[in-house]
């Protein structure tokens, strides 16, 4: 089989060997239900609490502020619906978010709009970054919650979270951040940064799929999203995904411990990739050049369409993704690229390469070798490219 270059780490990551190793006993010997009193159950409890401590340490939270969930989407739903319903009891029914959130946030907001909440969608501008002064002027006396993602999943831009959260604290508004793409990649301190709620997901940082967590600041009691048993201190029912939780603990510890060194390496590869790819005529980098995730490269190539670019790259053994509509089953281009002001025809030709710790310099060489060839092949058969180049000549 052809060697595969996997550069879609913002979609998901491979489980790290140490994570898998740590998880296996909980599928074999220690299979008990952590709520049971006999030893095979009891033995599952302590490692779970250990994982909670590891996550808390990475975020500078307390262990009792971490609640395990099935992943990022559940954490987002719980935080936003919970905070909205809590504050609605005090007559506050206005919510603020941004135009380029993940659908786990956007669709949750839309569900709340149907319930009668009013939502303001802040613009993110050409650089893909929210302006704190625009947040401040959007806040009203009945604003219940602000939810702004830490880093964007498509274009990788990192938001000024400390400034945004400070504004919220000043006005007595709850602040939630979907940090699914940021945790393990960016230093986060929920106390110093005044974050009230933060969502994270395991499979973006080399833990398995199906596990995540919500940080909820102590003193804030959200209504439950999932009712049932007494798990997670009566706040999130359901028998715990013990192996997944243990894996998440190991993964987050690995991610946070090696962050600085890994980021130095990733940023160097990312920058080389960006510089190389921008040699291609009529290409552009989406989102701010500096304020972006260490592994994120988001590009648009005029005159070609994203899905055919991805399929072509896949035939060369390169697994990447696109903001293109075609992959999501809709005919509209990515809402993120439209939110940063790209016209439809350019937004159709997008490519997202997201690097992870397992990627190598040789792989970057390979991508820089293949990408220009694929783009120029697709352009050679594109009538749109003819139109563009004809306009150039005129």
């Amino acid at each position, binding site marked *: 089989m052809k060697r595969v270059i996997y550069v879609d780490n913002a979609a998901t990551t491979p489980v790290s060997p140490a994570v898998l190793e740590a998880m296996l006993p909980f599928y074999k010997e220690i299979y008990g239900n952590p709520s049971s009193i006999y030893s095979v159950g009891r033995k599952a409890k302590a490692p779970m609490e250990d994982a909670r401590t590891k996550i808390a340490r990475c975020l500078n939270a307390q262990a009792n502020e971490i609640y395990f969930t099935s992943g990022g989407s559940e954490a987002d739903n719980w935080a936003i619906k919970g905070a909205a319903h809590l504050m609605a009891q005090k007559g506050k029914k206005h919510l603020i978010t941004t135009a380029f959130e993940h659908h786990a946030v956007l669709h949750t907001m839309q569900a709340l709009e149907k319930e009668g909440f009013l939502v303001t969608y802040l613009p993110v501008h050409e650089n893909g970054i929210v302006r704190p002064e625009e947040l401040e002027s959007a806040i009203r006396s009945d604003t219940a919650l602000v939810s702004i993602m830490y880093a964007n999943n498509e274009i990788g831009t990192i938001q000024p979270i400390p400034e945004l959260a400070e504004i919220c604290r000043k006005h007595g508004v709850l602040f939630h951040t979907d940090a699914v793409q940021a945790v393990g990649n960016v230093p986060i301190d929920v106390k110093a940064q005044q974050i009230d709620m933060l969502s994270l997901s395991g499979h973006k940082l080399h833990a398995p799929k199906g596990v995540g967590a919500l940080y909820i600041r102590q003193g804030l009691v959200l209504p439950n999203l999932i009712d049932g048993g007494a798990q997670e201190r009566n706040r999130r029912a359901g028998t715990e995904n013990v192996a997944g939780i243990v894996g998440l603990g190991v993964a987050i510890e690995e991610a946070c411990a090696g962050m600085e060194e890994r980021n130095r390496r990733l940023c160097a590869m990312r920058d080389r990739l960006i510089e190389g790819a921008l040699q291609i005529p009529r290409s552009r980098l989406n989102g701010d050049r500096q304020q972006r995730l260490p592994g994120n490269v988001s590009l648009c190539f005029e*005159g*070609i*369409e*994203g*899905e*055919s670019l991805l*399929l072509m790259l896949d*035939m060369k053994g390169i697994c990447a993704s696109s903001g*293109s*509509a*075609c*992959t999501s*089953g*809709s*005919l*509209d*281009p990515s809402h993120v690229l439209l939110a940063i002001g790209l*016209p*439809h*025809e350019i937004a*159709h030709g997008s490519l997202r390469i997201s690097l992870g710790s397992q990627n190598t310099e040789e792989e970057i060489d390979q991508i820089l070798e293949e990408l220009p060839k694929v783009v120029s092949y697709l352009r050679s*058969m*594109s*009538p*749109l*490219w*003819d*139109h563009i180049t004809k306009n150039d000549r005129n």
Partner: protein
Amino acid sequence: MLYSEKVMDHFANPRNVGEIADADGVGEVGNSKCGDIMRMYLKVENDVITDVKFKTFGCGAAIATSSMATEMVKGKTISEALKLTNRAVMEALDGLPPVKVHCSVLAEQAIKAAVADYYTRRGIDPTPIVGKIPECEEGHCGV
């Protein structure tokens, strides 16, 4: 979303890509806002399509349906080519995912647009023969 092997074959090795410099008819359908544009070139001798080429901007299905449509009309008479339906193109490709059906519609329209141009160049009003080719509206490609 999964493409059939036939779609992938026509995407990876598209037939009849290119232009015909002295074409007898050229048709272009779709628009860049929708994310697909197809352009077809025809060479016609004694009412028979002797050569056909295409250029397409679009997704995998757009390229594959263009390629298949050119194969299906090459060597056919004009009236046979006008009978080509999007359904026939789809069937020849062993099906398309539901969101990609519009690509086959575009391929059918591209052939019709090229034939219409062929008639127009000969001073014949194509509308009674070819019918009306719908414009691609914003956000609604084909279907």
